[in-house]
């Protein structure tokens, strides 16, 4: 499969110098065309920072301290998003990579009609487009996400949370981007609405063919909706594999811990265990593998040596990677 977004050795810090907190460390990740890539981890594992970093939306004091984000446009040569000029970056945003943010309730400006907020993005990216066709396009997008186009003149406070998030999804797709990043898009919604919106999103993805980076702490949602899953811990990717593989046969003890912290809908009954301890403090990361203080299987190299992400020696090793001393690698990724 051909890649659409390649993240290479991305490092994101908060603050500068010695007191900087390394929120994302040496992340290598490839998003392929048309796939749904899930990104899971506890709070503070760096998943949202990764998403903000690759679109250069980090608010100060967040800084990208190294790495590349290579974007492959549909036509033309790939380029590094991190090297774009301000104007080129503005043109890149939303047109190539759109984002649906966590705060379904606060993503829309309360004082503007949703029609204004849908059309201003068209105005910014295609100033020559007529007012009439902008409105028509906005109406079309609302219809696409299942909102009656006569709600165009509604203000955000007149819509329910689910409708607002649908408006945001419609807005994300309005320029037909190649990549849509979903940062906990349904966290603020109830379970029924979550399922409905994600189902709709997957259907739209099949129709329009964009790729999705789906960030959530809810691994059960990822297992159901994504093709591949990457698990983050302490700012690093610790395991990456096809969704079904992660679900059936996770290699990293942390992935297993995440999986055993929610009940399965179908299949045999398992005991829920969860993960003992709490997520590491990014400012004082444990030495070696940052998971070792909480890991039930930690052994002699773990506290001193950082395991690299690489292909494990298992039979299906070519399609997955893991960073764990239980599965030492000969082929590092990245």
């Amino acid at each position, binding site marked *: 499969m051909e890649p659409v977004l390649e993240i290479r050795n991305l490092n994101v810090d908060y603050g500068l110098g010695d007191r900087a907190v390394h929120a994302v460390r040496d992340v290598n990740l490839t998003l392929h065309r048309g796939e749904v890539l899930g990104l899971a981890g506890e709070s503070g594992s760096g998943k949202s920072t990764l998403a903000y970093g690759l*679109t250069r*939306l980090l*608010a*100060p004091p967040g800084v990208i301290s190294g790495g590349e984000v290579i974007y492959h446009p549909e036509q033309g040569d790939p380029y590094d998003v991190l090297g774009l000029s301000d104007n080129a*970056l*503005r*043109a*890149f*945003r*939303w*047109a190539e990579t*759109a*984002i649906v*943010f*966590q*705060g379904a309730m*606060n*993503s*829309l*400006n*309360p*004082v*503007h*009609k949703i029609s204004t907020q849908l059309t*201003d*993005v068209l105005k*910014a*990216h295609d100033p020559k487009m007529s007012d009439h066709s902008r409105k028509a396009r906005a109406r079309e997008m609302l219809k696409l996400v299942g909102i009656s186009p006569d709600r165009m003149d509604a*203000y955000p*406070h*007149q819509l329910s949370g689910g409708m607002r998030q649908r408006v*945001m999804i419609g*807005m994300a797709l309005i320029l037909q981007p190649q990549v849509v990043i979903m940062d906990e898009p349904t966290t603020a919604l109830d379970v029924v609405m979550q399922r409905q919106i994600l189902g709709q999103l997957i259907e739209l993805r099949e129709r329009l063919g964009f790729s999705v980076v789906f960030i959530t702490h809810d691994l059960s949602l990822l297992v159901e909706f994504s093709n591949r899953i990457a698990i983050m811990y302490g700012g690093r990717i610790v395991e990456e594999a096809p969704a079904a593989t992660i679900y059936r046969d996770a290699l990293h003890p942390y992935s297993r811990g995440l999986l055993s912290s929610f009940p399965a809908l179908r299949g045999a009954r398992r005991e829920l265990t969860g993960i003992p301890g709490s997520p590491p403090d990014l400012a004082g990361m444990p030495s070696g593998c940052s998971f070792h203080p909480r890991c039930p299987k930690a052994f002699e190299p773990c506290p001193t040596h950082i395991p690299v992400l690489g292909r494990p020696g298992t039979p299906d090793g070519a399609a997955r990677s893991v960073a764990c001393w239980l599965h030492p690698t000969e082929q590092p990724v990245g």
Partner: protein
Amino acid sequence: MKYFLQRIAFYLFTAWAAITLNFFIPRLVPGDPVQSLIAKFRGQLSTEAINSLYVLFGLDDDKGLWAQYIDYWKQLFQGDLGLSFTFFPSPVSQIISDALPWTVLLVGITTVISFLIGTSLGVLAGWRRGSWTDGLLPVTTFFSSVPYFWLGIIAIYLLTGPDSFFPSSGGFDSALIPAWDQYFIPSALQHSLLPALTILISSVSGWILSMRNMMVTVSSEDYITVAHAKGLSERRVAVSYAARNALLPNISGFALSLGFIVGGTLLVEIVFSYPGLGFILLQALGAKDYPLMQGIFLVITISVLVANLVADLAYLLLDPRTRKDG
């Protein structure tokens, strides 16, 4: 529309309550104007003179408070605010309409300019947080905590004098007759410069601070990040997303400050002996001039109420969330 009518009804009620208080409060103050005249003449007035003074001021008949109250309303509707004791026999309405333009022009224009400058600087300082504009803040904090009149006294002390361009008191050169001509207008402008600057400097800081703080608060809202992510121009995000939302609390502050134009800068007018309403009020207070005080308080009350109404309406217009039946 229903909301609108409710507001109007509320303001009419408030106006009634304020006018009623306005009627009673001066009558609760001990002493009366004749007493203060007697004090002025240090007992050199005969009993007949005192009696005739009571007759002259219309304080002779023993009407009850209630009858006076009814009369007060009747006269109010005829635009008759009574005769001033201090500037006898000028009617109060005449004195107020002479003084009002001075206050409204000086303080009104200054307030508007101060709001515009302060808000724009505040937007800039809030949006470019961490740049040189942050250096403004300690200065603005200092000036916003300095009282107007103190600044006025300092300005008079430092900037006026026999050879100075700035006159130290009055609203125009006393050798001139008020008229719209080439002599009077420049003189009036020259006289208004120092009081205007005093008010401007001490009030602009408040606008800068409040607007900057609102900008900083709004800048961390999710919809601002979304606006950036949408690839909108920096200008559009700053103006249409950040400043537009940050402006809302400042708008009501502005409308309220318009209401306080008449009464709020009283001390500046006193310091500069500026012929506005505040200066007149000082004289009325000194002479226990009920009709004049009541007239001035009436003007202040009405202007505050109207400003509040304007703030309500502006909010309806600017913030869709306040429109109940939108």
